[in-house]
């Protein structure tokens, strides 16, 4: 049994303009101690997937279908009481913007201790000790002094460390990191990623890393999910996704990022703009921007096809490979 099993998750936002299907049939599983990357552009549904797992959606958002099982326990429809035992204890989240996710009116120490006392039966003294210990773990100097300071007295990198300390204080099985380094500078990003990597090895938790930066994915993740317009277009091990991409969107993404050797050459951007989620086409959501689109792509949406044991994609181009993988014969 996997640690986390998400099956055909569907999350919609009900707006004045109509139903926005932000997540449309997402399935994946996560094993203990693995790092899963979810990549996609803004509006692809990567953050909403994470918020659905935590059930911290905005008021207009609702999980309309599918299941989320944590250690075999169903979370969809489980109710707020159950979710309270899950959030923080079993699954923690760190948000993109460390500037706004801490409360500016309380000290760092107060906020850390609040999280610890809420989720464990430690008393105030024990919570203080645990908070100091956590700050030390995430390489904050002089943790005792830092405990008394307010968020504005810390730099962005320092605040993100505090967020990580808070998320890890109750030793969750899963840490969801929603663009944890996007707001940070490169050298600080390197520090934070290194810290997450070493903590992951030390504490053995699983991480869901949500990012738009393929560089971050390459560095950190064992497995990768590529999302576009609310659904998964490709899923597999990092090596498979980077060296053998099988969905036209992933290929386009790889071609459009500058690399060390790309100077002097033309990048090959994906044409057009991301799709409007209110007007989803019948066929493949990427078909209007896809250079290789065929008639079937516009008519019918491609279901997920297993290409080999480590790799699946939802693209009609893979019919032959998928058939061979399934039957073991040549098509």
């Amino acid at each position, binding site marked *: 049994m996997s640690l986390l099993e998400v099956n055909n998750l569907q999350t919609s936002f009900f707006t004045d303009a109509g139903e926005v299907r932000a997540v449309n049939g997402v399935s994946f599983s996560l094993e203990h101690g693995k790092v899963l990357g979810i990549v996609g552009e803004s509006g692809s549904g990567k953050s909403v997937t994470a918020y659905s797992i935590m059930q911290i959606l905005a008021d207009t958002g609702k999980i309309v279908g599918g299941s989320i099982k944590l250690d075999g326990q169903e979370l969809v429809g489980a109710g707020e009481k159950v979710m309270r035992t899950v959030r923080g204890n079993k699954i923690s989240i760190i948000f993109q913007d460390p500037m706004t996710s801490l409360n500016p009116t309380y000290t760092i120490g107060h906020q850390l201790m609040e999280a610890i006392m809420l989720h464990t039966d430690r008393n105030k003294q024990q919570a203080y000790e645990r908070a100091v210990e956590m700050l030390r773990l995430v390489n904050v100097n002089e943790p005792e002094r830092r405990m008394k300071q307010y968020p504005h007295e810390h730099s962005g990198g320092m605040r993100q460390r505090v967020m990580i300390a808070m998320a890890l204080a109750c030793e969750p099985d899963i840490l969801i990191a929603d663009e944890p380094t996007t707001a940070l500078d490169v050298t600080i990003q390197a520090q934070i990623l290194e810290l997450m990597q070493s903590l992951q090895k030390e504490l053995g938790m699983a991480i869901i890393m949500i990012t738009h930066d393929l560089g971050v994915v390459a560095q950190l993740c064992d497995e990768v999910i590529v999302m576009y317009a609310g659904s998964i277009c490709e899923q597999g091990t990092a090596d498979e996704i980077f060296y053998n991409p099988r969905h036209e969107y992933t290929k*386009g993404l790889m071609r459009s990022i500058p690399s060390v050797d790309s100077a002097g050459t033309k*990048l090959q951007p994906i044409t057009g703009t991301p799709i409007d989620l209110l007007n989803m086409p019948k066929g493949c959501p990427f078909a209007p921007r896809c250079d290789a689109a065929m008639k079937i792509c516009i008519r019918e949406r491609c279901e997920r096809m297993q290409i080999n044991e480590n790799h699946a994609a939802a693209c009609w181009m893979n019919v032959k490979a998928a058939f061979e993988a399934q039957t073991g014969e040549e098509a």
Partner: protein
Amino acid sequence: MAEKNAAPLVDIRHLKKYFNINVGAFQTKPLKAVDDVSFTIQKGETLGLVGESGCGKTTVGRTILQLYKPTAGEIIYNGQPVKTKRDLKTFRTKATMVFQDPYSSLNPRMTVSDIIAEPLDVHGLCKTKEERRARVLELMSYVGLNSEHASRYAHEFSGGQRQRIGIARSLAVNPEFIVCDEPVSALDVSIQAQVINMFDELQDKLGLTYLFIAHDLLVVRHISDRIAVMYLGKMVELADAKEIYEHPLHPYSKSLISAVPVPDPKIARANVRIALKGDIPSPMNAPSGCPFRTRCQYACDKCAERMPEFKEVSAGHFVACHRTAEIND
């Protein structure tokens, strides 16, 4: 690539920009956002300017165009110093700017055609309405916008299209030199590539010269001929783009380049990052001597005493470090 020995189009000498910050009721203290920065840009060249937030790279761009009045230093454009108000007015028809945030840099109450034509109106470059309209449509076609977009408002466009509007506006006066201040960092990856290619094409077509300010080193590496690295208001290294990537000499450039996440799992796993300790000090309390010494693993007594000279160590490769020779053996 531009010729090396020709007179530079843009020549910045000892540029300084200090902001006065209130520290008490009647006291101010200078914040040295840009502190003695000199460089040149040849015609047709792209100079990339990189550094972390707060290093002063945006201030350099804005001070060159005198959106901020320089505290000291000279801006020499095409051999002519830009000093008086009259110089500045002509200078601003030659040099323009593309801003970082396509959401806040366009007036929401103006139509696209008015936004693009504003520089034309300000400088009185179009005599008749027809001329103005024709010019606007020409500019829109340069950046891949349709003519029917002209009467719409900025909020009707996506981030990438807004950035195109901003670029069309910066091209309106037929400039030779454009300061691009993080023009692609607010855009999605797939859109970013479209805009980067557009900068390339416009440069070929119109013979533009760019100062390209960004924090994404892979983007800067892709687009620039030469790259300058800034740290806490000072320029620490300047060299050919390829040279600085393959042989960075300053310890800060070394760690900056090693910290870039490479989108290739095998390289990323094998990559040895040179981790820096701590954070960037506040520019209000910049360390004495070399600004980088507090985070530098090679720092010595000399580094605390005085700022190293920004000198040419090999052809076209400038670096400001006392210990360049020792640490790069």
